[in-house]
C-alpha cells in the first residue's frame, strides 16, 4: 500500500482486496477497484492530471467530483473523460490532453511566459484584420486549442433509450433528496430518486457535519435503509439528470442508456458547488476545495497531503480540518477570513487539538514548486478591507491547501425551468426567488445548508410535491430543528468577498479559461460591462465547467467595478445540458423501421432484390444482381407480350362510407364523382389549397354509399390526414377508414392476364363487356374474397386484385400456379417505372414537385370545373389566369445514339434554364429513349425541339412527342 493510503473505514468506495493496474501517460499505476483515475493517481503521489488551456499550467484535483476541467483526460479513444469520476479498470490506458511532448514537460508551457502579450480578447483584436494571415494563424490555433484526440475509426458503442414515468421525481440523493423521497412516498406516490454518484447520501458520505463523525454516518445508514424498505421509491444511482424540459420532461443518463422521464412533480435537491477563493497561484495542484479533500479521504481512503493550510470561512471548513487531522495530516493552521466570534462546535474541536486558528486572515499567495507542479507553502496576510490585504506576510510550509469559503447552488435545472433567482446580500449567495409550477427545491440549492435544515427542507418539498401530483399528502410536516436555511445558529456559510487580487496576477477567476482578475477588469474597462458581453468577450464561464466556479466571482467583480449591485449586474443564462453529453447517448441505436407487405417472403423466395420505397420494402427486380438489366428487360417483355404480376399492397387504401361519400370525394379530389356509376373506377387527383398536386389514385364505387380509394405508396397517411382535416370542418355524413394495411394487392397485367385470372374466378365475369376497362367488381379469386379493379398503370390488359392481408400469400401462390402455363413472371418497380413511362403516366413527387399544378402536368382533363368546390379549385383558377410558366411534356431524343439524360438534367435555352428532365428510360419495345421533362410553354408543342445539358456539359437535342409513347389509342389495356 502506498504511503498516502489510509486504513478502513476511510475509503468506503474502494475494495482493498481487488488491486487494479492501469497506465497514465505511459507509466504503470496501481489502485483498487472503486478508485477513480484521480484518486488512484493521488494515492500514487501523482498530483498533476492536466495542463491548463491557455498557459499550460499543471492542474490537479479541484472538486474531486467531476465538476471542473482540471480532471479531463483521454481514456483510449474517449476524449474529455472526468478523471475524478471514471473508475479505473485493469489495463486502462489514460493520457493527458492538451499537452505537447507529455504532461511532465509540456513545451506548451512557454505560452505562459507570453501571457502578458495575450491580454483578454486577444483573439478578437489580433486576428480581426487583415483577414489573409488568419489562415496561417488558424493552423496553429487548431493545434493549440481543443481537448483530446478524436479517433475517427473508434467503434460506436451500444447506446439505447428508455421511457420512465414518476409521480414525483427527486433529483439528488443527498440528505434533502432522501428526506423528500421518503416524505413523498408516504402519500402513495410513485417516487423516482435520481443520484449522480454510486451511493445515496450526498454529503453524508464525506462531509463532517459534527465534531463527532458517527451521528452523520448513522443518519446515512438509517435513511438508506428506510429508502430500500419503501416499495414505491425507485432509486437510480450513477444517473445524471442533464436538463429540464417543458412539462417536467427530463433526460437521465445512466451508463450507455438515456432515460426520458416524465414526472408530475419534480424536486430539485441537487445541492451546491463549493466555491474557490481567488488568490495568487490558487490553481496549483495541491490546492482544492475542502469537500474535495474530504472526498479523497472518506470515499477513496487517500490522504491528500502531508501538511495542510486550511481556509475556513464557515463551520464546514473546520470539519475539513478535523478530517485532515484524523487522516494523519499535519494541519499547520486554519485561516478564517471572518472576525473571531463565538466558536462553533467543530471550531472548538479544532482548537482543542492544538491547531492555530488565525482570524481576519486569508492566503495572499500560494508558493509553488519549480515548474508549478505543486505547493510548498502559503503566504497569509491580514484582511484590511474588501479584497485588500496588509503588506505583512507570514509563510507556512505546506503541500496542501483546502478552501472552504462558501457554496453556489446547483440551480441549473431551476434555470432551465425558468425559475427566478436573486442575490441575497445577507446570505452572500443566489437564492431561489420563484419556482415554476410543479417544480420544488430542497436542501442547499434552496439555502438549507445544515443537516437538520436540509432534512426539514426535504420533508417540506416532498410533502408539497406529492400534494401537487394529486396525492393525499396528509398534514404538513413541522420543522424538527431551528435555524433552517443557515449553519450553526444563523451564520451564512458563504463569505461575501473571497477575491484577493494580486499585483503579480495568476489569481485565477476561471481555471478552465486561465482568466485572472485583471482579465475580467480589463474586459469591463473596455466596455464589456454587460454580463452577457463580458462572458463572450473574456470567455469567462465558457469552458467545460460552465461557470460553476467562475460565475459567482466574475459577477461580483463586475458588480463592484461598475458600481452596481449583484442583482443589477445579473447572471448569464444557464441552458441544458448540465454536463457534457456523448453523441452516442443522443444517437442511440440506429433504428430505421420499414414496413413489409404480406407478400414479402414470396419476393425473397423468388430472388427479389428489395429496396426501400417510402416506408416500405419493395422488389426492385427479381433475379441475380449480375444480370440486373436483363432481368428487368425480361420482366418488361413478360408484361408486354405475356403476363406479369406485381405486388401493389403498398398503395394506400381508404374506405369512404356514408350518404355523403360522393360529395366528400367531389370536394377532396379534382374530378367529378357524384354521377360515377356503381361498379366503375375513376381517376382521383388531389391538390392542396395552393393548387399543387399532392396525390393520385382511383376511386372505386362499390355501392352508392361506398367508395374504395387508392393512394400512392407513401401518400396514404397524408391523404387520410387531409381527408379528416377537411371533414372536421365540413361535417359531411361520411366515415373514412385507412385500410391500407388490411389489404394485400397484386396487379396481374399482360395480354394473357384474363386467361390466367379466369381459371381462378367463377363468380365474376371477366370479359370486356361484363368487366370493361375501369370496371370494378367484388367476388372471389381462388376462393378468396377479392376486390377486382380493372385498371392498368402499365398499359396492358390488367386486373388489380385486393384481398385481406392474411390471404395475400394464398392469392399470390394461386396466381403463380394458374399462370405457370403462360410463364407468368413477377415484376418489380424498375420494370413498372419503364412500363408506366411508355404509357406516359406520371409518378407524383417524381414527375411533379412542390409547385406543380394540374395544368403544368397537362392534367386539365382531370379537373371538374363546374362543381361547387374542391380543395385547390380557386388557386388553380388563379394560376391558369396568370398563365403557365412551364409544362410537362413527353420527349424522345433526336439522335437515337445519344446517351440517355438522367432525372434532373436541365433543359437549357441560351443562358436560361427552362426546365428539367423528371423521368427517362430506354424503351425496348419502342427502341427509343423516352422521357418526361418540364419545358417552357412555348417549347411544349408537339414537334418542338429543346436542348438538355447532360454529363460533362454536353448538350443533346430532344423532341416533344405526343403522350402516351406506347399504344396511344389504349387498345391494349381496353381489350
Amino acid at each position, binding site marked *: 500500500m502506498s504511503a498516502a493510503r489510509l486504513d478502513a473505514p476511510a475509503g468506503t468506495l474502494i475494495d482493498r482486496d481487488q488491486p487494479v493496474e492501469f497506465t497514465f501517460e505511459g507509466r504503470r499505476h496501481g489502485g483498487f477497484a472503486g478508485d477513480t483515475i484521480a484518486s488512484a493517481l493521488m494515492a500514487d503521489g501523482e498530483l498533476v492530471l492536466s495542463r491548463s488551456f491557455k498557459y499550460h499550467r499543471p492542474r490537479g484535483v479541484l472538486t474531486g467530483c467531476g465538476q471542473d476541467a482540471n480532471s479531463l483526460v483521454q481514456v483510449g479513444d474517449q476524449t474529455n473523460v472526468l478523471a475524478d469520476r471514471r473508475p479505473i479498470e485493469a489495463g486502462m490506458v489514460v493520457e493527458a490532453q492538451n499537452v505537447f511532448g507529455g504532461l511532465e514537460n509540456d513545451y506548451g508551457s512557454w505560452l505562459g511566459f507570453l501571457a502578458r502579450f495575450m491580454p483578454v480578447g486577444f483573439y478578437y483584436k489580433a486576428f480581426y484584420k487583415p483577414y489573409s494571415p488568419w489562415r496561417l494563424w488558424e493552423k496553429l490555433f487548431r493545434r493549440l486549442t481543443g481537448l483530446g484526440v478524436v479517433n475517427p475509426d473508434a467503434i460506436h458503442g451500444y447506446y439505447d433509450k428508455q421511457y420512465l414515468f414518476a409521480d414525483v421525481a427527486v433529483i439528488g440523493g443527498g440528505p434533502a433528496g432522501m428526506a423528500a423521497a421518503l416524505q413523498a412516498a408516504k402519500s402513495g406516490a410513485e417516487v423516482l430518486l435520481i443520484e449522480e454518484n454510486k451511493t445515496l447520501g450526498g454529503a453524508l458520505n464525506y462531509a463532517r457535519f459534527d465534531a463527532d463523525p458517527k451521528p452523520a454516518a448513522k443518519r446515512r445508514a438509517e435513511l438508506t435503509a428506510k429508502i430500500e424498505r419503501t416499495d414505491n421509491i425507485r432509486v437510480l444511482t450513477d444517473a445524471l439528470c442533464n436538463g429540464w424540459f417543458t412539462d417536467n*420532461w427530463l433526460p437521465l443518463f445512466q451508463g450507455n442508456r438515456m432515460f426520458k422521464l416524465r414526472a408530475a412533480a419534480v424536486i430539485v435537491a441537487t445541492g451546491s458547488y463549493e466555491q474557490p477563493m481567488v488568490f495568487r497561484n490558487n490553481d496549483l495542484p495541491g490546492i482544492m476545495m475542502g469537500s474535495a479533500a474530504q472526498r479523497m479521504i472518506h470515499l477513496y481512503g487517500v490522504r491528500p497531503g502531508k501538511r495542510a493550510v486550511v481556509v475556513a470561512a464557515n463551520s464546514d471548513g473546520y470539519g475539513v480540518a478535523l478530517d485532515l487531522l484524523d487522516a494523519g495530516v499535519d494541519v499547520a493552521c486554519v485561516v478564517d477570513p471572518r472576525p473571531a466570534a463565538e466558536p462553533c462546535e467543530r471550531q472548538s474541536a479544532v482548537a482543542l487539538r492544538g491547531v492555530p486558528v488565525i482570524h481576519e486572515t486569508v492566503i495572499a499567495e500560494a508558493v509553488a514548486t519549480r515548474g508549478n507542479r505543486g505547493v510548498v507553502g502559503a503566504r497569509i496576510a491580514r484582511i484590511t478591507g474588501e479584497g485588500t490585504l496588509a503588506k505583512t506576510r507570514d509563510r507556512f510550509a505546506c503541500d496542501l491547501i483546502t478552501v472552504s469559503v462558501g457554496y453556489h447552488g446547483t440551480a441549473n435545472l431551476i434555470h432551465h425551468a425558468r425559475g427566478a433567482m436573486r442575490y441575497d446580500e445577507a446570505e452572500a449567495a443566489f437564492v431561489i426567488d420563484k419556482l415554476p409550477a410543479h417544480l420544488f427545491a430542497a436542501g442547499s440549492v434552496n439555502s438549507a445548508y445544515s443537516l437538520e435544515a436540509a432534512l426539514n427542507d426535504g420533508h417540506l418539498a416532498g410533502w408539497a410535491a406529492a400534494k401537487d401530483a394529486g396525492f393525499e399528502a396528509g398534514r404538513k410536516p413541522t420543522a424538527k430543528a431551528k435555524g433552517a436555511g443557515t449553519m450553526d445558529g444563523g451564520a451564512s456559510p458563504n463569505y461575501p468577498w473571497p477575491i484577493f487580487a494580486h499585483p503579480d496576477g495568476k489569481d485565477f477567476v476561471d481555471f478552465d479559461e486561465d482568466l485572472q482578475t485583471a482579465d475580467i477588469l480589463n474586459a469591463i474597462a473596455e466596455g464589456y460591462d454587460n454580463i452577457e458581453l463580458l462572458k463572450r468577450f473574456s470567455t469567462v464561464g465558457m469552458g467545460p465547467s460552465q461557470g460553476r466556479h467562475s460565475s459567482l466571482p466574475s459577477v461580483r467583480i463586475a458588480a463592484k467595478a461598475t458600481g452596481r449591485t449583484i442583482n443589477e449586474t445579473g447572471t448569464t443564462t444557464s441552458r441544458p445540458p448540465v454536463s457534457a453529453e456523448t453523441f452516442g447517448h443522443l444517437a442511440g441505436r440506429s433504428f430505421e423501421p420499414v414496413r413489409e407487405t404480406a407478400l414479402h417472403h414470396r419476393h425473397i423466395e423468388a430472388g427479389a432484390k428489395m429496396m426501400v420505397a417510402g416506408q416500405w420494402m419493395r422488389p426492385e427486380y427479381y433475379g441475380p444482381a449480375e444480370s440486373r438489366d436483363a432481368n428487368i428487360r425480361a420482366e418488361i417483355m413478360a408484361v408486354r407480350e405475356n403476363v406479369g404480376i406485381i405486388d401493389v399492397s403498398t398503395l394506400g387504401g381508404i374506405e369512404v362510407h356514408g350518404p355523403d361519400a360522393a360529395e366528400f370525394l367531389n370536394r377532396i379530389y379534382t374530378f*367529378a364523382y357524384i354521377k360515377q356509376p356503381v361498379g366503375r373506377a375513376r381517376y382521383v387527383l388531389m391538390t392542396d*389549397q395552393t393548387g399543387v398536386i399532392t396525390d393520385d389514385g382511383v376511386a372505386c364505387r362499390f355501392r352508392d354509399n361506398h367508395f374504395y380509394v387508392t393512394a400512392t405508396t407513401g401518400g396514404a397517411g397524408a391523404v387520410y*390526414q387531409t381527408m*379528416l382535416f377537411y371533414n372536421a*370542418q365540413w*361535417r359531411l355524413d361520411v366515415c373514412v377508414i385507412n385500410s391500407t394495411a388490411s389489404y394485400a394487392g397484386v396487379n396481374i397485367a399482360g395480354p394473357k392476364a384474363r386467361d390466367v385470372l379466369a381459371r381462378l374466378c367463377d363468380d365474376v365475369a371477366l370479359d370486356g363487356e361484363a368487366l370493361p376497362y375501369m370496371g370494378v367488381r367484388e367476388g372471389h379469386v381462388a376462393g378468396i374474397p377479392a376486390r377486382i379493379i380493372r385498371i392498368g398503370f402499365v398499359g396492358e390488359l390488367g386486373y388489380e386484385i385486393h384481398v385481406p392481408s392474411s390471404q395475400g400469400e394464398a392469392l399470390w401462390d394461386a396466381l403463380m400456379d394458374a399462370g405457370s402455363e403462360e410463364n407468368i413472371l413477377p415484376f418489380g418497380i424498375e420494370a413498372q417505372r419503364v412500363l408506366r413511362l411508355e404509357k406516359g403516366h406520371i409518378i407524383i413527387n417524381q414527375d411533379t414537385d412542390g409547385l406543380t399544378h394540374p395544368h403544368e402536368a397537362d392534367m386539365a382533363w382531370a379537373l371538374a370545373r*363546374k362543381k361547387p*368546390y374542391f380543395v385547390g379549385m*380557386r388557386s388553380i383558377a388563379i394560376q391558369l389566369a396568370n398563365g403557365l410558366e412551364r409544362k410537362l411534356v413527353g420527349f424522345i431524343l433526336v439522335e437515337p445514339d445519344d446517351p440517355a439524360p438522367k432525372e434532373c438534367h436541365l433543359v437549357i435555352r441560351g443562358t436560361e434554364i427552362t426546365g428539367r428532365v423528371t423521368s427517362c428510360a430506354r424503351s425496348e419495345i419502342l427502341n427509343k429513349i423516352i422521357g418526361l421533362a418540364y419545358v417552357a410553354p412555348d417549347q411544349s408543342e408537339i414537334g418542338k425541339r429543346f436542348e438538355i445539358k447532360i454529363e460533362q456539359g454536353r448538350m443533346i437535342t430532344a423532341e416533344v412527342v405526343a403522350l402516351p409513347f406506347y399504344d396511344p389509342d389504349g387498345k391494349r389495356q381496353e381489350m
Partner: protein
Amino acid sequence: MKILNCPLNGPRNISEFVYGGEVVEHPEPHTSSNAEWADYVFLENNTAGVVREWWYHAPTAYWIIAERDTVKDEVIRTYPASELFSERMAYPAPPEAEES
C-alpha cells in the same frame, strides 16, 4: 417536451401530434378577390397572444383545436373540432356553373 391534452386520448407528448396551422376563416372560394384568397392560402397571422390552432393526433387520426398563448407558451384549452364546426358546411355553386 410539451404535453398536449387530447380530448379523445388524454395528455400525450406533443411529438405525437402534427401541427395543422391556425384556425382561419375560409373566404368565399369563387367571389373573394385574389388578394383575399392568397392571404388565406399563404399568410399566417403569427399572433402574439392567444391563438386557435389545428392539431392532429397522428396515432389515432384525430383532429383537435387547441387554444394557445404564444407569448406565455401555454396551452389554455383543447377541444374537439365539433365545438367550432357543428353544421354541415355547404358550398354554393360557382356563378357560371350549370351542373355538378
